[in-house]
Every structure is written in C-alpha cells, then in structure tokens.
C-alpha cells in the first residue's frame, strides 16, 4: 500500500433492519492504488461504497476520504471523488456529449477547461466518433466507458467503480481494464467492487474479501494466493481410486472431493515438487489418465476463508 492514505475506514457497521450489511469493517486504501472489494452478490460491497461516499449513514464507525470526514465534510469529499454505479445511470435520450455537459454543470469547479477535458476523455474512451449520438444506441461496454469518462470529467482523485464490467462483452472488458490502468498511471486511486475473480486478479493491487458484510482477508491477489500454501491437484484414473484418504495418507492432502466418478480433486502442499513420487505411486496401482496441478485461484482463497465457493 502507498504511504499516503486516500481512504480510511474504521470499524464501520451498517444494518438494514435485522440484516447486517457491513459488519465492523476497517481498511485503508493508499493513494494511486487499485483497491478491490471482492465478494459474492449481497456481501456488502455496494453498501460499503455507499457508506464511503456518504450516501448511507453508518450505524457506527468513522470514515475519512483524503483527510475529510465523510459524515461532516461531505461536499468536500464529493469534489474529490467520482462514482460509476453498478447500474449505468446515463440519460439515454441525450448524446454522450450532453451527458458530459450535464455532469460538468453539477461537478466541475473550473468550467473554462471543460470542453478540452471532455474531448480528451471522449478520445480516451474511444467514444469521440459517437459523441453526438444518443446514448440509447450505445452497447453495454460503450455505456460503461461513457460512465467512466463522466466520472473522470471533474478530475477526481478517487474513482469508485461498482462492478466495472458487469454485462460487458470480453472485448469491452479488456478495454475498460486498460482505461482503469492508464488512469492509475496518472495518479488516480480506484476502488472497485467485483465478484469477477479474473477482474480482481488482473486489475487490483490489493483485495478486501468480504462475506456477509465481514472482512475475511485483505492483501494483494498474489499474497492471498501464496498464503494458501498448497496447490490444487486433480487426477483421473482407471478404475477410480477407492478410499483416497488412506491411499494418499503419506502426502498430507486435504479437502478431497470427487467432481466426477473417475476424478479426484484435493489440496496438497508443494505439489509440483512432489509430483514425481505421487505419479509413481498412483501408476503402480491404477492406470493414470491425467494429472493436473494448479496454483490456487482467488475462488480457492475465498473457499478457504469462507468454506464456500464465490459463485455459490
């Protein structure tokens, strides 16, 4: 994490009736960081963003954005942040340019330089050619890019991006990731919420994994995966291995499962180093059809911390 703090969240809790959406969350985001909130739908990611933006009042806890207290200095916070919500809230009957003008009137401190900034952002998001067209005619990816351009128009220091590539095709997804990376190079801080592990893995410097409103892990994607200290091994044999717990007892494997009748999946420490002896032992008793050793994914990290898969 960078030395300078962009966002500081301390012991924040928010409930809706009997449901605790955010439960005693604390974290810090450094300036220039791409910080990810990773969790399944309903984990509390959007609620957390709404709390930091001052749209929701916390039941308890404190939040500071660029040194400003969110509860008492909300307008100062608004000048410094941009927000791209999950549901792209653009005026569909207006053109891309008119949507940006609308935003400029509401947000931009300096109205003199807006036209140049607008042109720059429309070029940056590859929407310049379509700037006069009604947004209604845009694809999902184009709308997300326009929403990003709009959030960047008033030159905020921090951009909150809720599910950046939700409903966006693969090509549009890569384009958006590229835009976010480029903006980060220009010094912007991003807080993104996602349940897409590839996105979290590719884009984020650090991830806060949330489940049922609680923080379950916070680190870089690499460290989170490395922290697992085991690899995922998947083998297919003929016939299927019977009593795998006994057969693999010497290898200290864990979480054995059988996705297919002939397939065995388990976690094993230093699997690559021990692969040769494992293959030899299996081949002596069974016909080994295939063996696959994989590094743990973020899904495995999530599974490890919560006991269930992210997609459940």
């Amino acid at each position: 994490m960078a030395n300078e703090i962009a966002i500081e969240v301390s012991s924040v809790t928010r409930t809706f009736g009997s449901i605790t959406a955010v439960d005693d969350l604390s974290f810090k985001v450094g300036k220039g960081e791409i910080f990810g909130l990773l969790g399944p739908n309903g984990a509390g990611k959007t609620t957390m963003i709404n709390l930091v933006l001052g749209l929701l009042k916390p039941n308890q806890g404190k939040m500071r954005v660029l040194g400003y207290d969110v509860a008492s200095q909300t307008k100062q916070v608004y000048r410094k942040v941009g927000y791209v919500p999950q549901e792209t809230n653009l005026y569909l009957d207006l053109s891309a340019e008119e949507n940006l003008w609308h935003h400029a009137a509401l947000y931009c401190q300096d109205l003199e330089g807006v036209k140049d900034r607008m042109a720059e952002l429309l070029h940056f998001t590859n929407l310049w050619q379509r700037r006069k067209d009604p947004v209604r005619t845009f694809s999902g990816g184009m709308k997300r890019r326009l929403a990003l351009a709009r959030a960047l128009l008033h030159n905020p220091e921090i951009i909150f991006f809720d599910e950046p590539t939700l409903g966006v095709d693969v090509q549009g997804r890569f384009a958006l990731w590229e835009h976010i990376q480029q903006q980060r190079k220009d010094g912007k801080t991003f807080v993104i919420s996602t349940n897409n592990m590839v996105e979290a893995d590719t884009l984020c410097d650090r991830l806060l994994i949330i489940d049922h409103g609680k923080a379950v892990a916070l680190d870089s994607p690499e460290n989170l995966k490395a922290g697992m200290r085991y690899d995922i091994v998947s083998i297919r044999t003929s016939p299927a291995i019977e009593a795998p717990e006994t057969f693999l007892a010497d290898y200290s494997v864990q979480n054995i499962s059988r996705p297919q009748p002939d397939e065995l999946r388990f976690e094993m420490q230093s699997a690559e180093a021990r692969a040769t002896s494992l293959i030899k032992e299996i081949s002596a008793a069974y016909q080994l059809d295939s063996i696959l050793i994989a590094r743990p994914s973020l899904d495995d990290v999530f599974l490890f911390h919560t006991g269930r898969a992210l997609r459940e």
Partner: protein
Amino acid sequence: MKRYLLLLLNEFRLSRTALIVHTIAVLQPTLMYVLMAVMMVVPTFDMRIVQPETELENDLVIAMEEVGSPIGSNYINPILTTQANPEHKQVIEIVHIDGVPTALQSYGFIDSNLVKNLRNRLTAALLVLWNRELGSQAVLVDEHPWLPQDVPYTVYFGMAMIPLAAYLAAAMIGGYLMAQEFEHGTILEYRLCPTSDSLLLAAKITRLLLTGLAAAAILYITLGAITGVWASSAPAVFVILLPLTLIAACIGILAGLLTRSSLPSFLVGLASAFVFWLVGSGFGLAAGFSPIFERISRLIPNTPIIEMLFPYFYFGREVAPNPTAAKLQLAGYCLVLLVMLAIVYRQRVTSMQR
C-alpha cells in the same frame, strides 16, 4: 452565473427525455380552448323566430332588431322561420295564452351566459313595445353598460385558462422529470454533486417558469387570434402569472420527490391543475357564485390571479375585492412552498439515508 446558465441549459435538454409529456402539458389547454371556443361558446348566434303572423309579432321582431346589444355588437341575429322547433336552436314563438299573445322562449345547446343575454334582449324588446304603446309617459329603457365595448364570453373563458396553461405545464413537467430522475437512477448525479441545492433548484424552477409562461403565451396568442381581444399590457399578464407558475413548479417538483414515480407525479400535476381551474374562477368570477363557493375559490391561487388579470382584458375594470391581501396570499403560498421544497429536496436527495 455561468454554472447557473449551464444548469438551465441542461434542464431544457432534459425535455428530450419526455417529449410526449411536454407536448401534452404545453399544448393541451390551448387545444381545449380552441375546441371549446369553436364548439361550445358562440359569441353571436342565430335566434329563430317562428313566422310572425300578427302585427304585434312583427313588431316584436322589429323591436328585437332595434334593441340589438346594449354595448355594441349584436348577440342575436333574428331569423324568421316556419319551423316550429328546430333542433339545438334558440327559438322564440308567439303563442296565445288565454287570448293574450305571449313570447315563449326555448333554449337548446347554449351556456348560461347566453341564456342571460337572450332573456335580456327579449325583455328589452318587450319594453320597447310597451313604451311605444304608452308613448312618452312610459318607462324608458336606460342602458348603463359596464364596459365601453362588448367582450364576448370566450374572452373570459380564455383568460381564465391562461393560468391553467401556465400551471399545467410547470406542475406536470416538473413532477414528471423529477420522478424520472429516481426511476432512471440519474438522481445519483444530484446526490453526489458538490453544487448547492439552492442553485440546482433555482435552475429547475426557472426552467419550469419559462416553460409555463411559454404555454401561457401560446394560449394568450390563440385567444387574441380567435377573439381579437388582447390584453392592454401583455408583459403585465406574464408578470401576474409568475407567482402561480412558481407555485405550480414547486408542487410539481414536490410531487416528483415524494412519489418518485412518473405516473403519479404526472397525475398530481394534471389533477391539481384542473381542480384549481374549475374551483378557481375558471368559468366565472368567484364573486358571482355562492358565498361558500366564493370562500373556497379564494383559497385557490387561480382566483386572485384571474382577478388581477381581469382589468387588462376588460378595459381596466377592477374586480379584486382586496388586491393587497391577494398579493400577500400569493406571496405566502410561494414562500411556504419554496421552504417545503428545500426541506423535501434535502431529505430525499442530498442528505444521507438513515
């Protein structure tokens, strides 16, 4: 100032998100007026008089022609006819009741104002005949017209619809656009923006004021084109309409903020506009109705507005019983609604959700 103008321009751009609503809200009163003026209210109409047979009956027709209208143009155009009861036409027939020749009037598709005119013309004609028989000692019909020139009822009807036009456009469009922001999620743009609430609301209200006055201007021009009557000061008419349009804009935006749904907001604008029109002197001055109705009517902002407009269409004739009180009443309504709007906007848009 630049930000305010840009906000105002944005508000007008948003018209494109609700074109049908704009068309209905701006043009509906004018279309309604044109239809009603052409179909329901006839400034001069034909009076069919069944073929007179006696000298007295002929004298009545002549007397009616002589009387005409006491203030200029003829309301009645007597036409001799052999048809006793033509459908939907006004008829006067001389009948003999107990041997006494009696003028019998029948009315068809006419409004109460014309009934009054018919009765007055006939009474005047009979007085002329009576006077002729009595000679110089008889009663003379001494006319004291209130107005120097006849003003047809369509002028009052149209004048009372001008506030309706301004109100309907401001309330209906204001409510619909505000609710749409919630429905489309674009309200988030306003929730997070650092610009002050007062500046945002000022731009929204100004846009609705201008739209309301434009709708009123269309009706004003149509009224003038149809009747040939123009207000003695057009700018004064629009200045008088300002408080009502401001009230309408506040009510419309409030409806949008409170319902957060476009259809109910649209209906609130529509219903309040027509209730205000009907109860607020839409068909006649409040003083012409029962004391209870007049009291209720005076609570509606349209009534003081119409009473203020009246002199500009009716040769300077004042009808407002207490102009200062009326102005204070309108100012009070505006102030209360502006405060309410500021509070509700803050609650619904800018403050943190609890």
